[in-house]
């Protein structure tokens, strides 16, 4: 008679694979993690790895092709290209990550509030997001960059102003769909206050999707940083940055094409790493639920 009920008996061991196992079983995530880790590691360790100083000029050895001494050659001022490339990664990646912190937090928070409480909170927040979306992002960056002077400050300010919108929109939609689910109703029946439901119950559920969006958003931000550097209204020389490197190499594109191509490739590499990371995380989280 023990086999009548079709309800499975709870297994002895959890069937939930460990986090590590799940990562290993997702090739896109694994590749993304490896690619990004290598980049970060090289960027962090470059002062110890490279014998060159990124701004040290050596005019007797300018525009050299790749060689044993200079793996990627030198630029028009005789600086080692590989060293500059990795120092530029330090600058650009650091700005990219730092500039996302505040927008990510405010965006997730506002999105949850707007999706959970609905009514006038939702109306106000949606109005703001719609208003900002109507402005082209680059227009705002350029205006702020001119107003605050060139350099990374413009990027931080612009991003604090508009960067949260993408997170707010995604999280708002997610929250609104979770809000209709019954586990939220049970939390409300328990009498839990709104902030507790938001932070302890909703946050863990919206965070995965928000992190996936963060990955793609970072790619956009990196491209913005590099573009501004290229246009000369981003990071100011002599601080190494991929954008200024591309711009500096441009006059020599026919003779020393790698000067511009290599930092360009670095941007593409980072973009691929981040999108693999995002895709992989989305994959894992989709499979889990």
């Amino acid at each position, binding site marked *: 008679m023990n086999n*009548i*009920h*079709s*309800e*499975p008996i*709870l297994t*002895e061991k*959890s*069937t*939930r694979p460990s986090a590590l196992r799940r990562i290993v079983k997702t090739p896109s995530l694994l590749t993304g993690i490896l690619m990004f880790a290598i980049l970060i590691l090289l960027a962090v360790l470059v002062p110890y790895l490279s014998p060159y100083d990124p701004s040290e000029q050596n005019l007797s050895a300018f525009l050299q092709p790749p060689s044993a001494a200079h793996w990627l050659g030198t630029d028009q001022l005789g600086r080692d290209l590989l060293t500059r490339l990795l120092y530029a990664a330090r600058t650009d990646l650091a700005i990219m990550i730092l500039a996302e912190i505040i927008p990510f937090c405010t965006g997730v928070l506002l999105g949850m509030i707007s999706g959970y409480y609905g009514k006038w909170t939702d109306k106000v927040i949606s109005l703001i997001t719609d208003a900002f979306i109507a402005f082209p992002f680059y227009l705002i960056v350029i205006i702020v960059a001119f107003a605050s002077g060139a350099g990374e400050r413009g990027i931080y300010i612009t991003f604090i102003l508009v960067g949260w919108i993408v997170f707010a929109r995604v999280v708002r939609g997610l929250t609104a769909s979770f809000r209709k*689910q*019954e*586990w939220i*109703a*049970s*939390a*409300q*029946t*328990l*009498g*839990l206050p709104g902030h*507790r439901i938001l932070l*302890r*119950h909703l946050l*863990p*559920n919206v965070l995965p999707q928000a992190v996936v969006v963060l990955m793609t958003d970072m790619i956009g931000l990196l491209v913005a940083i590099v573009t501004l550097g290229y246009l000369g209204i981003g990071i100011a020389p002599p601080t190494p940055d991929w954008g200024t490197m591309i711009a500096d190499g441009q006059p020599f594109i026919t003779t020393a094409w790698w000067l511009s191509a290599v930092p360009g490739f670095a941007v593409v590499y980072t973009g691929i790493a981040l999108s693999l990371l995002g895709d992989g995380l989305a994959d894992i989280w989709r499979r*889990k*639920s």
Partner: protein
Amino acid sequence: MMEPALQVKDITVRYGDYTALDHITLELAQHTTLGLVGESGSGKSTLARVIAGLIAPDDGQLLLGSVELRKKRSKEQHKQIQMIFQNPDASLNPRHSVRQILAEALRFHRIVDRSQVERRSRELLEQVQLPARALDRYPHEFSGGQRQRIAIARALSVEPSLLIADEPTSALDVSVQRSVLELFHNLRTELNLTMLFISHDLGVIHAVSDTVAVMRQGKLAEVNSRDEFFLRPAHEYSRELLSAVPKMPEYHS
């Protein structure tokens, strides 16, 4: 006579022009189960949500014991009424383990001492016939019936004086439905619960209720004792419902 556990007085809920609940008046006696029947759109779930404090009524009054439940309920009043929902796939937070689910309720209402949370959680699982190793699992690792048991354990954890079950077995397979109904039956006698049990399935209502209330289009059609309702329903609509239930053919051999 004992004071009713819950009194619903003239409760009305409107959505624009649509009246979801139309002056509902109902009493729920202590330690009994009221079975609430009705077809889709009858307003039975809306009534449950009003009582649970999830929807504020436009009109009318709710009395829990002798205390009026207002729009803003106290923490204690929230604790007194707990609810179990229909859809086992959505009734538990997918990112909380069973341990977190039970501890959240126990801690928030300070049901037991911090050090006793673990022990109490195990007891609760035992009460709904789940092994203690379930504590470290996440909702997706359980079957529908098991999730419903966890939802019951969570609702019971805060020791409510009224338990609302909104179609708790409708999404389950028939064999599982039966074992969950048995669980409700045992808990009722063990814990002396007062329950509002909502179902569209008259067989289920017959199995669990002391009193039956029938709703139709936002109005209460009939309130009757269980035996009276199933044998001699007072309302024509109740009779229509009862005769529509598919029955096993009878064979005389």
